């Protein structure tokens, strides 16, 4: 039994009341901008409407479509737009406000961005994960912009005494073309605020052919200049008067605790002010801190030096024997026996028995650490029953809830200020570091910054799971695949929330296992049990990484066995253009999206394969020692295909001369940032394929920094990465971008290595395997 049956509730188990009414009080707190919209009209929540439905309303607190929450216009015409999601490099802090500006007819040079604090009642869901921001907010943001525009037009029409239908907002002004009159937004702001907020259903949205910003890609990130001059503010850059600097020695084994400690030597370190034990929660406990011993100092350097001088005896607890080599063997053993059937079409057993040829392969992917360049860090200032937090959190609303619960104070008393995130990749969806800061600030009665070192980040994180994927493919005499059995074994993220989770949750099964799109008569997917021995968490694209690696490697293995071209084999398996029916899957997660709006459409998967093959020159002749590989995968309801060219020299040195990727992410907002996300996904994909592994011995992570947990560097990076964005139909719903680029990379790379060398790699990372 899975503990979590509804993945939408994963942020916590106990909450999730969908809020239908936004309280007047919370709205009236408003933006607090002088001269902004005066909030006079009655307030009500406005669920979005659109030609297509999304899962946005099912997220905690859904969406809020209200221009008075998101837009303020000052008398000087400066338009302030609230960014309510977290910026971690995807460009969301630019892209969502840009959607509002588009519909508002605002001139982008006169737009300013204000980052929302954590408040989901006011702003709607703020969980910046799951590649959801554009797909959930394209329509609500358009409606917010259109609503504000309508209010400005109404105010101008009233002032001129003409029907509203005769006026039109154009580039920061409202124009009455019949009389040639025009008024700037700034002059209209006060009157516009007196207009009632129009009904969402009656809003006129712009014709996409009139878009100035959406889909164009000419606008740079709003933080670009600050980043290049060093003023962009990340979590660690927050400084408060009287702030103490803390680092914490945490239990090296998940579930361990402090048995005893001696802080005398640490106290002698210059700058160290205090050593104290901090509270931990027994594992598993969602995002609660691990506890340990904190060193408080006047600067971070002193705190680290003090921590080095601590003497701690740990009680390792039940996971003290976790060992990666043995655990892999356990997973492999489980994968070789029947497991919980999670998808079943036809009779796979009989089809495998009757097959002319059966190809079997097992693929292994180790734990991977997120290793965002900014390690976890947070500042907290707790005074009495009030708490203020500053930090790089992906989930501002969730952080607020968890801080309130941990401190035992009302949510209304917690303010969460979201800084820029120096990378997130899912790690910063977990707010344990903010909770640590809150607890320490309460204890010390002073503002505290908790800084994680790189070693803390790698050793005490929420790792990507570890997995064995076993696929058996049965072929008939003609080489057609008639049977496909895929067993996927990996400890579940659910194990971080509650004890006893032995099976993958629907949201994990739905990432490349049960949603496998091939047209095969007999398909069975199974999920044998696996018990977690450390904290498992979301890592950019999550279970799609091992699944795409296995499935897309298998495609090339079948192509080789039947002497066919990889791309032709892939298209044959994808089969006819159709909407895939998955009647046997009990809980098809589908990334939280309704299947009607976001079905598995093999025509779109075929299209990206054909697009990348065409643009990327599939089948071109390459020099000796080079090879081409291809892979395609649907994830986060987007379709993506990648071709990698590798070169392997006679010593086994791997280089990547060229990468080509095609993505179909539906209607898109900011193609420049899509390109950068896909370029980056190639680097992350290559990094995890070449180097990425976190391993355990005696329950402890064996790596600690970039020397033994290397990330890809520029001198190993692809010489060229080309990105092609498939044109979308006018009503195609937007889909994910931040994560989908990662999964197809590793299999395309591995398939290319096979083409170049004849060596088939089934366990990542590649490490020294090519040198043998």
């Amino acid at each position: 039994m899975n503990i979590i049956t509804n993945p939408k509730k994963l942020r916590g188990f106990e909450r999730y009341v969908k809020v239908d009414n936004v309280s007047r009080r919370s709205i009236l707190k408003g933006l607090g901008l002088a001269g902004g919209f005066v909030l006079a009209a009655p307030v009500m929540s406005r669920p979005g409407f659109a030609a297509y439905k999304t899962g946005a309303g099912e997220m905690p607190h859904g969406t809020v479509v209200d221009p008075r929450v998101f837009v303020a216009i000052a008398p000087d015409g400066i338009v302030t737009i609230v960014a309510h999601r977290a910026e971690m490099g995807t460009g969301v802090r630019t892209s969502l406000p840009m959607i509002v500006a588009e519909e508002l007819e605002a001139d982008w040079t006169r737009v300013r961005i204000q980052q929302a604090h954590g408040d989901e009642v006011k702003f709607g869901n703020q969980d910046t994960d799951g590649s959801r921001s554009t797909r959930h907010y394209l329509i609500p943001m358009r409606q917010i912009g259109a609503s504000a525009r309508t209010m400005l037009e109404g105010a101008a029409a009233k002032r001129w005494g003409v029907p509203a239908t005769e006026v039109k907002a154009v580039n920061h002004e409202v124009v009455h073309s019949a009389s040639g009159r025009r008024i700037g937004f700034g002059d209209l702001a006060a009157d516009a605020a007196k207009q009632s907020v129009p009904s969402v259903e009656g809003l006129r949205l712009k014709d996409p052919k009139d878009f100035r910003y959406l889909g164009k890609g000419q606008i740079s990130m709003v933080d670009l200049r600050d980043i290049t001059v060093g003023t962009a503010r990340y979590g660690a850059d927050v400084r408060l008067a009287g702030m103490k600097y803390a680092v914490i020695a945490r239990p090296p084994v998940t579930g361990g605790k402090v048995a005893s400690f001696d802080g005398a030597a640490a106290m002698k370190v210059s700058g160290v002010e205090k050593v104290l034990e901090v509270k931990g929660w027994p594992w598993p406990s969602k995002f609660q801190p691990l506890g340990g011993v904190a060193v408080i100092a006047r600067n971070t350097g002193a705190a680290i030096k003090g921590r080095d001088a601590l003497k701690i005896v740990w009680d390792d607890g039940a996971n003290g024997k976790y060992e990666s080599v043995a655990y892999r063997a356990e997973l492999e053993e489980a994968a070789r026996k029947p497991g919980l059937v999670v998808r079943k079409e036809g009779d796979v057993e009989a089809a495998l028995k009757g097959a002319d040829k059966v190809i079997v392969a097992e693929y292994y992917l180790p734990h991977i650490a997120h290793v965002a360049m900014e390690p976890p860090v947070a500042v907290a200032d707790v005074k009495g029953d009030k708490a203020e937090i500053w930090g790089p959190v992906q989930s501002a609303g969730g952080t607020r809830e968890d801080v309130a619960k941990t401190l035992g104070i009302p949510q209304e008393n917690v303010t969460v200020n979201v800084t820029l995130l120096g990378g997130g990749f899912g790690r910063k969806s977990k707010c344990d570091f903010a909770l640590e800061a809150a607890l320490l600030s309460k204890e010390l009665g002073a503002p505290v910054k908790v800084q994680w070192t790189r070693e803390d980040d790698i050793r005490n994180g929420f790792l990507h799971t570890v997995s064995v994927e076993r696929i058996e493919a049965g072929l008939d005499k003609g080489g057609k695949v008639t049977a496909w059995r895929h067993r996927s074994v990996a400890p579940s993220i659910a194990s971080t929330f509650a004890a006893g989770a032995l099976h993958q949750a629907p949201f994990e099964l739905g990432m490349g296992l049960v949603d496998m799109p091939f047209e095969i008569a007999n398909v069975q997917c199974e999920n044998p049990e696996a018990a977690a021995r450390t904290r498992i968490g979301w890592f950019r694209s999550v279970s799609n990484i091992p699944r795409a690696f296995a499935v897309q490697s298998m495609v090339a293995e079948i192509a080789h066995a039947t002497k066919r071209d990889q791309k032709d084999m892939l298209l044959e398996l994808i089969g006819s253009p159709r909407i895939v029916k998955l009647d046997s899957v009990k809980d098809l997660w589908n990334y939280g999206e309704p299947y009607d709006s976001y079905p598995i459409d093999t025509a779109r998967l075929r299209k990206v394969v054909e697009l990348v093959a065409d643009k990327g020159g599939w089948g071109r002749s390459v020099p000796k020692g080079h090879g081409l590989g291809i892979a395609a995968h649907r994830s986060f309801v987007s379709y993506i295909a990648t071709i990698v060219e590798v070169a392997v020299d006679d010593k086994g040195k791997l280089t990547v001369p060229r990468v080509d990727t095609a993505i179909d992410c539906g209607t898109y907002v900011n193609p420049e940032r899509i390109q950068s996300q896909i370029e980056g996904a190639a680097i992350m994909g290559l990094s995890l394929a070449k180097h990425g592994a976190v391993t355990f011995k005696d329950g402890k992570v064996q790596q600690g920094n970039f020397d033994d947990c290397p990330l890809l560097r520029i001198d190993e990076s692809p010489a060229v990465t080309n990105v092609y964005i498939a044109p979308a139909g006018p009503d195609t719903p937007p889909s994910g971008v931040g994560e989908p680029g990662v999964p197809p990379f590793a299999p395309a790379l591995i398939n290319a290595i096979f083409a170049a060398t004849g060596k088939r790699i089934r366990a990542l990372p590649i490490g020294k395997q090519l040198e043998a």
Partner: protein
Amino acid sequence: MITLKINGAQKNWDGDPDLPLLWFLRDEIGLTGTKYGCGQALCGACTVIVDKQAVRACITSVSDVVNRDVTTIEGLHPTGDHAVQKAWRQLNVPQCGFCQVGQIMQAAALLLENPKPNHDQIREAMAGNICRCGCYQRIENAVHLASTGV
């Protein structure tokens, strides 16, 4: 008492002479542009320029830079318009941006030493700076652009 010269200004320190320059800059004098990434000179996020050379501030103690000119991102150019900074903006290099200060300082130091680096020299000089978002293609192009005129 140690006196340091940071971006042309004198700064005094009477604490631990072994304190890494990084934490002096960030925590003691509030120059937070320089970032912590690893603490072991493995990632380059903390790169500053000492005299004319790129140096990792995380393993350089304050006493090591007495009587030397330390330049941080805050002092790289008075209006933030160093050729490298301009090239970075022109090519929209950053994603999350956290490593970019270190990348920019490293690139600026490279151009001091070699004003026209080729492809391999750029890759070699920038290989100590990790970018987890994977902006390498744009970093390489931006260093090239900065060296040829923005």
